[in-house]
């Protein structure tokens, strides 16, 4: 009972985080000096200018616009999403969030960009975690060995090389020099059969590699530290003195405890990966969320900027929530005391 209560509490906290973030990002844009109409030529008369402001929805006072934006985000857009899936007409005639630049619903633009980002980021994260966990565990298990030192040096190196440098160098080596892989991600490519899938896989290798290297460096370090700490525990010595094999000691007595901080770090590392994804998408011209964000920042398209940033926060908060649930499953003590 208490565990479910704890879960509800963390979900409530996640909701509050998102609400505060929505308020903060909206307030930031309101407080910022600079006028969305700054791009409009000076020759446009004042009445027309006023009409343009009204057309952009800038006529209302700020709190009203914030409330409208929240209402659109939480009610109208999900309804529109339902319409798109089920073919109903729940959101018909309701005001959706519109992009100033494209004059189309922001969510439709985002829906066109989101899959690429999710694929690249998700795959990179999966690959990174799959490499980092065994790497960190082996490093801690054989502390101070050549393997451990090499691993530590490599992960420090991987952290130090910024993604825009490694991305550019990888393009130079694998696309230009060797000619093995495409340097530009073709977003319009549709996967219909096996050869298409192969093309898709080939164009994903480089961006995923750049992001996965960063993830691996971060998570391997934490895994190593967490496993090291648990290897020094008394119960591990007991397990070894009982005559258990090393594999059994690691698997049964060390890994479960070590995974608790690692799961948290995996979730906390996500903001960094989204940051890396913005840069990586720019290098490989992946037409994803980061690309959309940069493009709309350059075009001063505030509704898109606001919604994309908020959506990234939603993804991160959801990942944190998932990490919280995993930690509760791994460690029954969390939340047991309220």
């Amino acid at each position, binding site marked *: 009972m208490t565990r479910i209560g704890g879960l509800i509490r963390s979900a409530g906290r996640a909701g509050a985080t998102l609400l505060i973030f929505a308020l903060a990002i909206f307030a*930031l844009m309101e407080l910022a000096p600079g006028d969305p109409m700054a791009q409009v030529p000076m020759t446009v008369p004042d009445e027309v200018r006023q009409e343009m402001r009204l057309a952009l929805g800038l006529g209302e006072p700020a709190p009203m616009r914030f409330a409208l934006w929240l209402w659109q985000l939480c009610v109208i857009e999900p309804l529109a999403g339902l319409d798109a899936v089920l073919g109903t007409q729940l959101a018909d005639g309701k005001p959706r969030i519109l992009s100033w630049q494209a004059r189309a619903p922001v969510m439709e633009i985002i829906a066109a960009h989101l899959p690429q980002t999710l694929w690249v980021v998700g795959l990179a994260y999966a690959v990174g975690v799959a490499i980092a966990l065994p790497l960190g565990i082996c490093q801690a298990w054989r502390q*101070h060995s050549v393997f451990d030192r090499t691993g530590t040096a490599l992960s420090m190196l991987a952290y*130090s090389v910024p993604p*825009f440098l490694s991305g*550019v160098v990888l*393009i130079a080596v694998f696309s230009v*020099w060797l000619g093995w892989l495409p340097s530009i991600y073709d977003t319009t490519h549709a996967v219909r059969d096996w050869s298409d899938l192969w093309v898709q896989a080939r164009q994903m290798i480089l961006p995923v590699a750049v992001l996965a290297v960063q993830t691996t460096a971060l998570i391997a370090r934490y895994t190593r530290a967490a496993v090291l700490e648990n290897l*020094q525990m008394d119960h591990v010595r007991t397990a070894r003195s009982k005559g258990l094999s090393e594999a059994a000691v690691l698997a049964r007595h060390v890994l479960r405890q070590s995974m608790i901080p690692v799961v948290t770090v995996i979730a906390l590392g996500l903001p960094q990966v989204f940051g890396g994804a913005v840069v990586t998408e720019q290098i490989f011209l992946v037409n994803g969320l980061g690309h959309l964000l940069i493009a709309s920042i350059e075009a*001063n398209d505030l509704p898109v900027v606001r919604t994309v*940033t908020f959506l990234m926060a939603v993804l991160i908060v959801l990942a944190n929530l998932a990490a919280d649930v995993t930690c509760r499953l791994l460690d029954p003590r969390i939340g047991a005391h309220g």
Partner: protein
Amino acid sequence: MVEPVAHRSAAVMATVRRPLRRRIGAHRGVIVGGVLFAIICMAVFPGAMLWPIDPTAIDLGNGNAKASLAHPLGTDQLGRDMLARVLAGGRVSIAVGLAAMMVALGVGTVIGVVAGLSRRLDGPLMRLTDLFLSLPLLPLLLVVMMLFREALSEGLGPEAGLFVLIVGAVGITSWMGTARIVRAEVLALKERDFIRAARAMGVSDTRLILRHILPNVASPIMVSASLGIASAILTESALSFLGLGFPPDFPTWGRLVSDAAVYLFDYPGRVFWPGMAISLTVLSVTWMADALGDALDPRRAPPR
């Protein structure tokens, strides 16, 4: 009466410091990383003054020159000397890194100490820290850069304004680690006898923090300061690379890499040198922080 006390305190300080120095000595990373970072700083700050060529001097007749004695790293497409540009870029990048680290450290230490000491503010402050930790920071930084760059460049001039903006924005979004570490240390420290004794003697809160608590949390602060420099340099270079950092004619390492990326296959050196400089600086500082953390944490065994 005064002299023996001073004498004793010096002797005590020596015995307190010696094992620390020896422990740091046992971790070569602190020395190697620190020396490397010092060399880079020396090359970039006073060294750049010794190099006579102006990084912004355009010499169109001498564009895309190969490495020579006059231009050890060659010149770019406008004939500007690459060595001078890399040095000037480093000056900006490292200055941003150091300044942003100070901001982050200041905010983080204040929040950490207050959260550790005050039972009432602990909860809200840690909520705030968690909130910042779950934000998409780079996108947020990009938004802040977009919204405030015009206003600040008009107010303070294009270079100073953007410097303040970048330092402020990076600092405000990277204090969370410091705050968490400092809070944990303060919580552990609060129950120690010498803090209780100081309280019992009626030491004021300010003095307690300045004289008894801050010196004892200095080592974790040092570690997170080094890591802070590294992450600030990386963030600044990412902003410059995306074109939302300093103005285009103002060289920073990230901007140099982004400008040269187009010419990568013809002139790989132009990407290589500034990129190398970023990586080497970040590597040296991270290495130092890592080894420092090992040296200061008695639970971790020293390397054999």
